[in-house]
């Protein structure tokens, strides 16, 4: 210990030495954690010096110049907000106005369920926070339940339910051979799950595959889930982003509501309003009646209070400013469609380029799939080659963020993909 002290060059007073009996850190045995697979990609991209580098990793929208976008409606909302309002604590359940408008998007502008006050809803920390709050709620109030998660899914889904200590199982979803939906196996898994299981469903634009059930398939899924008394929890992170029309993108949810399910929904404004870092979202749970909704909401708040007390106000203000002003809302809908259309255009371009290069493989899944991501079918080894040889960054499951594709880089990208797959 004396040597250590001498080496540190510091004279520690006697009492400190006594107190420092445990000379080594408490945390010596803490292992370095693995890098987050998705966010780690962007870190690596930023570190790369190559002028040709392409980031098709994280799912944040880019314009055709590869630049992040702040929507005009958001800028206008911010102008109106700045300097006018105080920064007082929101209620634990967040901004009432924001939540009201958000429910209309998911449940329908004139939803009877909203009028009947049957929906327990709180502002949440974007989609992640909404899922986590629901997972904690599920653990507290249905402690014997388990969650069924599609294969594959956004990696963080597993982390969320694990940290909430809800046992998880998986259900078939993606069909690698067809690069589409493994519908029969999915239905089988729904039927074989114990009654009253919880099922996590991606409402639209499945992440990471981009493969969505058709309307007919959704109806059948709804039927079987209902027959088994399962709970349907929707993660809707891309409403408006998939087809360009928020109403259309909510179709799966509306089908379930028609069929009488009491669903839960996690909604996010990260992508469709470009509010990523503001962490704005909403968790809602449809209940039997108003009394139940009040009870459930109060319990959700009890879970939020020891996590962050009350949610951040700024992003919520932006959302409620936009959605409660008819002109701003119209502008938002236009801007969402522009983003969705650009992505659809890039899908067409990427597929077209690959076919022009004479690729022996089929690339029709690029245009069949929908939303921000394309599950390319590339192997981890092929992805590594793309990164090491071509400075193209994506997650190793072969997921391409189409938002990162531009008219400027689509040929380069197609070329590189062709090189590693031919």
């Amino acid at each position, binding site marked *: 210990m004396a040597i250590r002290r001498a080496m*540190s060059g510091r004279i*520690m007073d006697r*009492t*400190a030495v006594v*107190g*420092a009996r445990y000379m080594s*850190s*408490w*945390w010596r*045995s*803490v*292992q*370095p*954690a693995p890098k*987050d697979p998705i966010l780690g990609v962007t870190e690596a991209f930023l570190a790369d010096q190559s002028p040709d580098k392409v980031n098709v990793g994280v799912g*944040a929208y880019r314009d055709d110049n590869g630049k*992040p976008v702040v929507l005009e409606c*958001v800028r206008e909302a*911010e102008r109106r907000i*700045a300097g006018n309002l*105080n*920064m*007082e*604590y*929101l209620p634990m359940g967040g901004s009432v106005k924001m939540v009201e408008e958000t429910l209309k998007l998911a449940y329908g502008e004139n939803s009877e369920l909203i009028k009947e006050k049957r929906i327990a809803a709180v502002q949440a920390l*974007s989609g*992640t*926070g909404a899922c986590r709050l629901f997972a904690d709620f599920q653990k507290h*109030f*249905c402690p*014997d339940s388990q969650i069924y998660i599609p294969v594959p899914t956004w990696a963080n889904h597993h*982390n*969320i339910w694990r940290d909430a200590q809800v046992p998880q199982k998986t259900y078939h979803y993606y069909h690698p051979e067809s690069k589409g939906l493994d519908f029969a196996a999915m239905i089988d898994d729904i*039927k*074989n799950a*114990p*009654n*009253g299981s919880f099922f996590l469903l991606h409402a639209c634009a499945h992440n990471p595959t981009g493969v969505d059930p058709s309307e007919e398939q959704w109806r059948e899924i709804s039927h079987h889930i*209902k*027959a088994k*008394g399962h*709970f349907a929890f929707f993660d809707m992170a891309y409403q408006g982003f998939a087809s360009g029309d928020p109403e259309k993108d909510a179709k799966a949810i509306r089908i379930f509501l028609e*069929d009488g*399910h*009491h669903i839960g929904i996690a909604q996010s404004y990260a992508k469709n309003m*470009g509010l*990523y*870092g*503001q*962490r704005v979202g909403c968790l809602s749970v449809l209940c039997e009646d108003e009394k139940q909704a009040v*009870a459930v909401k*109060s*319990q959700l708040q*009890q879970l939020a*209070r*020891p996590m*962050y*007390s009350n949610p*951040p106000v*700024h992003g919520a203000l932006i959302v409620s400013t936009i959605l409660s002003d008819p002109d701003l809302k119209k502008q938002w809908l236009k801007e969402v469609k522009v983003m969705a259309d650009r992505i659809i255009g890039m899908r067409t371009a990427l597929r077209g380029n690959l076919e022009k290069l004479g690729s022996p493989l089929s690339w029709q899944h690029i245009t069949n799939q929908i939303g921000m991501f394309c599950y390319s079918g590339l192997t981890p080894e092929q992805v590594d080659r793309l990164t090491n040889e071509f400075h193209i960054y994506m997650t190793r499951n072969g997921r391409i963020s189409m938002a990162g594709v531009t008219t400027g880089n689509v040929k380069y990208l197609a070329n590189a993909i062709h090189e590693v797959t031919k």
Partner: protein
Amino acid sequence: MRPEFASPSSSSSSSADRRLNALVRHLATASMVSQTAVAFSPTSGFHGDSVFSHVVRAPEDPILGVTVAYNKDPSPVKLNLGVGAYRTEEGKPLVLIVVRKAEQMLLNDKSRVKEYLPIVGIAEFNKLSAKLIFGADSPAIRENRVTTVQCLSGTGSLRVGAEFLARHYHQKTIYIPQPTWGNHPKVFTLAGLSVKTYRYYDPTTRGMNFQGLLEDLGSAPSGSIVLLHACAHNPTGVDPTLQQWEQIRQLMRSKALLPFFDSAYQGFASGNLDEDAQSIRMFVADGGECFVAQSYAKNMGLYGERVGALSVVCRAADVASKVESQLKLVIRPMFSNPPIHGASIVVTILKDSNMFNEWTIELKAMADRIISMRKQLFDALRARGTPGDWSHIIKQIGMFTFTGLNSKQVEFMTREYHIYMTSDGRISMAGLSSKTVPHLADAIHAAVTRMS
């Protein structure tokens, strides 16, 4: 016919069985489904019971519930001394001038985007926050032994730190002072720690029960975590003196107790940022480890923006780096990455020396107004000859005064004088003004003389 429902291991049953089961299920009625439901709540799809039918309404949060009740009250003389949010002399919430300036700068900077922050938040924010609390010349910072992550205000910082401790620390018990902020026990319990208390407040003196504190910490198992309010103890306003802090430090280090500081009022207590950080810096100076939860809610008035930071001071740089990587694993499944707006305001202010100075001036003005309210209330009670020793009002420090009034007296004051405070007799001095002090003094006087 009683339907046979597939068990989880149905993969072992034949496909014929499965088809039969499927057929049976389609024929089953709603009531049969719910009768045979295995261990789980009834079905959700029949316009009938929800799986959450059994959920009962939670009680109102005691602190935030005060404001709810206040808002309902139609009386023109009502006074909200509940939640600890600063109010001006006019009783209005305050956005600091320097904060408004920072906001405008951010608004006008067209290059700013709203992209995801890294999991740990804004790097500059983390660095500046560490400097603010530990001091710019802190050896722990110089030696890269501190990891700081942006979190959702004080609450969020406490929660993230507690979750890390529940996973990685060998002792799962945290000792919290008696009394403490109402939300503390819940934060730690939900994070997976078990909560015990140590004596802190002496109701007879309305000051510290220092002997009790030393005894309780002295008998805590070695390695236990100890929650310490860095300054301006909430709810009592009673802080240890510097000598007492030194004694606490020595005791804790000799028992290898792990300090977890909650710093929600830096600058708000004395009006001086460095002075209010003394307790923490004392612990860091001895080379030992500690956790610090920092909040900008009060001292920068950023309440609803949820801006805070969790710092972990480690013995070595490589350890700090490993700790940070594990903190990220706590954060990612909780909220992925922290909100950008409030932290950007903080960075704008802290990194500009002029704006920093403006902030310290506005901060001191808030602290001074509170100190002045303490004096005025004390004088008003003396003038009325209110029985009892009210010197604790001016001895206690920070936003709150623990009046010593009991819940019956509090109830009386709410009923008769429309004064809202938490039932433990805690009043937020920030909610007082020169105009309203007389009304409060009248109410206290009445409560003390008419109710015991």
